């Protein structure tokens, strides 16, 4: 295995194209443990952390741009970002302990392809886009379209994520991400729920509900969104959200939670995240 540390997107693109079996990486907090547990080594590990464009967060022209390889601790400690997207910050903040946070990236969290990746549901709820570089230049797709199954991506050979874009939310919008784990560090969400709502007074005018860890990829729950829109998040509406989220959950059975348990928790967390997001939207 070789190691390469390009300093520009073009250099990284060329390295990836010229070396079959090569792989980009950032914090290595998934890659290194995976290699140590016996996954085959790539031919070349291409470190993305020396490319400035992938290591910064900026806000202009009505949207945020977040470098795909930037440490998540830098995002969660960005006060302005966190005040606008508390839910995304919560999700990113769940990734491991402080030591992991100083290395782990949003690009790695997404592209590792885990259905339980904690930063992903809230990114989808804010309709974040991924800017992808490949041999033919760059293209932009919804974050929701990057992962197609556990460990499976829609990216072609030679492609990698450069940065994420998120539009400024409309006024009176709030988001929230809540996850359930038996423990904290070193544990993986049994269920994660992200909700983003826009309120007009007491009435919800827009909503996105996204569940993590209960299906092969993070999933949006249109029935829960429909129940929220037009409601004042009254009990009847929240009961519909709970039922819709449970119905959308199609989880696995494992040592951390049974199917029955996960289905029920999905409903409860979606409801709680909706209430919290609405509180933030009104604040």
């Amino acid at each position, binding site marked *: 295995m070789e190691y390469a540390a390009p300093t520009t997107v073009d250099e990284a693109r060329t390295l990836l194209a010229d070396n079959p079996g090569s792989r980009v990486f950032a914090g290595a*907090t998934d890659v*290194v443990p995976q290699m140590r547990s016996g996954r085959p080594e790539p031919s070349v590990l291409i470190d993305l952390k020396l490319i400035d464009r992938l290591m910064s967060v900026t806000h202009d022209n009505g949207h945020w741009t977040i470098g795909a390889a930037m440490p998540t601790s830098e995002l969660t400690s960005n006060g302005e970002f966190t005040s606008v997207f508390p839910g995304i910050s919560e999700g990113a903040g769940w990734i491991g*302990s*402080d*030591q992991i946070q*100083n*290395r782990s990236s949003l690009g790695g969290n997404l592209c590792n392809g885990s259905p339980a990746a904690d930063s992903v549901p809230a990114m989808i709820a804010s309709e974040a886009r991924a800017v992808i570089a490949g041999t033919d230049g760059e293209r932009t797709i919804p974050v929701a379209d990057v992962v197609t199954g556990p460990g499976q991506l829609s990216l072609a050979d030679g492609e990698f994520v450069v940065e994420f874009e998120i539009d400024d939310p409309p006024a009176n919008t709030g988001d929230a991400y809540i996850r359930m784990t038996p423990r904290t560090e*070193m544990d993986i969400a049994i269920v994660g729920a992200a909700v983003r709502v826009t309120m007009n007074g007491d009435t919800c005018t827009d909503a996105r509900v996204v569940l993590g860890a209960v299906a092969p990829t993070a999933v949006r729950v249109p029935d829960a969104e429909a129940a929220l829109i037009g409601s004042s998040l009254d009990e009847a509406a929240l009961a519909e959200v709970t039922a819709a989220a449970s119905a959308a959950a199609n989880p696995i059975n494992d040592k951390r939670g049974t199917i029955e348990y996960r289905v029920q928790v999905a409903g409860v967390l979606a409801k709680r995240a909706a209430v919290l997001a609405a509180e933030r939207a009104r604040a």
Partner: protein
Amino acid sequence: MEVSMSVNGDTQTSDVEPRTLLVHHIRDTLGLTGTNIGCDTSSCGACTIHVNGESVKSCTMLAVQADGTEITTIEGLAGDDGELHPMQAAFMECHGLQCGYCTPGMVMAASSLVAENPEGLDETAVRQGLEGNLCRCTGYHNIVKAVLAVGDTA
């Protein structure tokens, strides 16, 4: 590959294989065995060091990724005259260790936690800040006490 890093203030240049983990480089090549290895899943925190002032599990970094960085290990924490770092002194004072295996990683994580929170820390913040470090002996209670002893007066 040739890599060069400042380790506890000394520039160290060595030839490393790309797959070498930073923790192995520190222990085996540089001979600084204070940094422990307690797991192979990046879970235990025994290998915690500071890279450019921030705490990192040195088993999740490749040595080649540390090229050009400034590294502090437990050996570099005490003063040149051997005077203990306040966090080391507090662990001793508060009985924050038993077998001592987790201690280098705990002290490194705790010292960066305190440095990053100059406004002070409460117990919840300390427990949360150290959640990446496991201890099989102490039950954490005296570790938290030691960190608060330093963090409260920081």
